[in-house]
């Protein structure tokens, strides 16, 4: 017994080191496995609060730019609205109860944004209280941003598309050939679309949109332009480089897309298990 105590006292530094190092490794490994509720995250009470305070001050400096973006978006929506070809004709056919759709948009403000690491996260200033739940899509007026993975009462955390865990279904605008959107961790403006079949007519400058094969994003949200593409080693799939429409280094306000039917679809899919 005496010897055990002596051993412990003699090696107390090594033991403490192993303990602390093991604890931090555990947290690291946990953060690398997708979809787990984490206490150590920027969406908790303290960090979210501090980020929000800081952002309250910072956002004043960007007011002009945000206004400009809003004007641009309003312009776009107005153009769409006033160019509906024949309103009389449409009125008879649009059934407003069906037209409402299953997606609901909510606004939120970005209070923390990363883009220089391999696994980047964004923190928003709204959470469960505003009915924002994990696995909701996040977009701006220009393109997609990411998916919510963790929501506390007042804050939520978004897995940015600039994250090695992020995998989003996307397709060519012209045809229906689709693939998965991933990021190789290098340039925050260029992301990759992989597993696009060789048959697809890929051309530089073509637009990529979301595919709508998941519950998270509706179909047709713009993502970016093709700037380059190459066949993979087997020669059967394209890997496409996409320049984002969205400037991921400069996001102010975002829209969170809530799928109202999600619970129902989930229940349907879970019947198998």
């Amino acid at each position, binding site marked *: 017994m005496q010897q055990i105590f002596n051993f412990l006292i003699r090696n107390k530094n090594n033991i403490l080191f192993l303990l602390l190092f093991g604890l931090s490794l555990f947290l690291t490994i946990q953060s690398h496995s997708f979809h787990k509720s984490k206490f150590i995250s*920027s969406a908790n009470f303290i960090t979210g609060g501090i980020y929000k305070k800081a952002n309250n001050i910072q956002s004043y400096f960007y007011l002009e730019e945000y206004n400009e973006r809003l004007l641009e978006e309003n312009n776009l929506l107005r153009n769409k609205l006033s160019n509906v070809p024949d309103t009389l004709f449409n009125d008879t056919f649009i059934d407003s109860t069906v037209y409402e759709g299953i997606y609901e948009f909510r606004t939120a403000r970005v209070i923390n944004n990363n883009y*220089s*690491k391999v696994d980047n996260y964004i923190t928003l200033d709204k959470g469960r209280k505003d009915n924002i739940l994990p696995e909701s899509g996040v977009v701006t007026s220009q393109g997609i941003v990411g998916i919510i993975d963790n929501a506390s009462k007042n804050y939520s955390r978004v897995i940015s598309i600039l994250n090695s865990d992020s995998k989003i279904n996307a397709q060519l605008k012209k045809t229906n050939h689709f693939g998965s959107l991933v990021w190789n961790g290098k340039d925050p403006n260029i992301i990759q679309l992989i597993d696009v079949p060789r048959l697809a007519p890929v051309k530089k400058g073509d637009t990529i949109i979301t595919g709508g094969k998941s519950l998270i994003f509706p179909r047709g949200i713009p993502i970016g332009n093709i700037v380059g593409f190459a066949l993979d080693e087997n020669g059967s799939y394209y890997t496409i480089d996409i320049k984002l429409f969205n400037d991921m280094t400069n996001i102010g306000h975002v829209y969170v897309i809530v799928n109202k039917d999600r619970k129902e679809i989930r229940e349907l899919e879970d019947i198998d298990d």
Partner: protein
Amino acid sequence: MGFINPYLYLLFLIVYPFNTPQGLFMLIAFLLGLSIDTFEDSGGIHAAACVFIAYIRPIILRFSFGISYDYQTVKLSNTPYGARLSYIILMVLLHNLLLFILEMFSFSHVYLILKKTFFTSIFTILLVLISLTLFKPKRR
């Protein structure tokens, strides 16, 4: 290359008094790393890297300052310049290397890890040196 993010918080671990008990120093380093991890959403990589360099700091100190470290008389402000530089470089390099290995978490990105470690370390070391010259302790 994208963006370089120097980690100036290493300055705290570099100038922390050399004669504090090792266990206490490791605990402080762990808490520092963990608080940065919560804000950066990076799991536990900063905590791991901080605890690691806190653990091996005596070895680096002995390597850089030689036998005089053992008599607990060393103060960072009155050491020879070369020794101080080697101490800082070693601390920053080891910290960043472990940090980026844990961040990537795969050995298929060795080239990217080394590149990031190299560039981030250069800027961190520069910032640390600038801060040390700007905030010199007053001589009495």
